[in-house]
């Protein structure tokens, strides 16, 4: 069976049940496991890593932020969508800085959650616009079509074959900062992925930078 493989973690059984059925009804996704506390989430990820973990921040045994930390350390390829009822700045910032791939609210319609899960499956970062600005606020965004100095710097590292985590380490920023920069870059350059971005850089960016 194909499709994106999803793990759901929430200590509210009603939410799990509803969300599971909704995800299962989508042709391109399936739920491979559910968990009702943080410890179970970690065990399930270790046993059979999904494409995306969707989990609440408030769970028993081990809270969502601690889970996020363990998942990102042990299984960096697994994406995480935080699903919470609280839209407060502290939760959002903790999710951003903890390397979550998205932040969805239970106070939005569940279909919105399903749409966010799909976006995260496809490698997009799903955060409110303000969060993105917040993470990049000290850096000049450049204009709508030309990469900023920071973006060009990241592009150069991408074209050297560095991963996001390696770039983040090199530039001393969070993984998500690098991801946001790359998303902005893709939009500006009209490319879809790293390969196309590298091709653009080798063709035009290097000359501009020189």
């Amino acid at each position, binding site marked *: 069976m194909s499709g994106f493989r999803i793990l759901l973690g929430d200590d509210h059984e009603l939410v799990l049940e509803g*969300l599971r059925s909704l995800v299962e009804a989508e042709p391109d996704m399936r739920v491979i496991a559910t968990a009702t506390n943080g410890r179970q989430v970690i065990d399930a990820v270790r046993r059979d890593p999904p494409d995306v973990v969707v989990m609440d921040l408030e769970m028993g045994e081990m809270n969502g932020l601690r889970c996020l930390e363990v998942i990102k350390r042990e299984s960096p390829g697994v994406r995480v969508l935080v699903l919470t*009822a609280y839209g407060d*700045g502290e939760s959002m910032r903790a999710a951003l800085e903890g390397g979550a791939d998205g932040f969805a609210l239970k*106070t939005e*319609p569940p279909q919105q959650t399903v749409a966010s899960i799909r976006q995260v499956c496809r490698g997009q970062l799903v955060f409110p616009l*303000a969060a993105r*600005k917040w993470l990049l606020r000290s850096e000049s965004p450049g204009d709508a079509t030309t990469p900023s100095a920071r973006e060009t710097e990241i592009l150069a590292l991408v074209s050297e074959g560095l991963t996001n985590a390696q770039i983040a380490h090199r530039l001393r920023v969070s993984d998500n900062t690098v991801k946001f920069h790359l998303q902005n870059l893709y939009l500006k350059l009209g490319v879809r992925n790293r390969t196309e971005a590298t091709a653009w850089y080798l063709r035009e960016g290097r000359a501009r930078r020189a």
Partner: protein
Amino acid sequence: MSAPAAPTREISASHRMMQVTEWELQRILLDIHDGPVQHMFAALSQLDLLRRALVSAECLSPEAEDRVARIRQLLEGGLNEVRSFIGAFRPPEFEARGLVALVENLLLQHEAMTDTQVALEVRGPVPDLAVPVKIGLYRVLQEALSNAYRHGGADRVAVRLRGAAGREGPRLRMTVSDNGDGFDPARMAEGRHFGLQGMRDRVEMIGGRFRLRSAPGAGALIAVEVPSAAPAEEE
């Protein structure tokens, strides 16, 4: 989710009251979080599933479709009303965070909810503040941001924090200015505007000074100055 710890620090009566209020607020929010929010979210999921089942069995009449849409609207409306409340009033970790981090997180939250921008300027070392002082400043800032957005229609707000020396120890100055519609403070005083009065009361409870400057068409400026420590217990 674990229950919030009861406040234990004993300072003045007004400080204790402020902490107890926050503690009670957190308990109420927890109940809303664990109850209605989860139920409404789950109910919406079930409603979507019901609709799908009826559609695939080809027995969703136009009338039933309308009813499903109406139920969805009602549930989404309920969630929407809860959203701003539990997002806005969830108490952050006042004990563990410094004022600057608390303010930064509040601004991020406000920006995400309102899609407006707030500039933050921090000058000089910000002194360590007693927890009730942090609570007071946080809630005053929250009210000021909310007023600027809801009543003033401001799209630009600036928050400044500045540490200052005082005769009885370090003090903290906070100003919040906006480019909104502004208002006549004298007329507000006549109408006893609860938000403004609440801000003033909170600042007085933590032994600080509250000033407000505004005029129709000229935005609003709120300036607060508070001591970093709690005032002595009133006898």
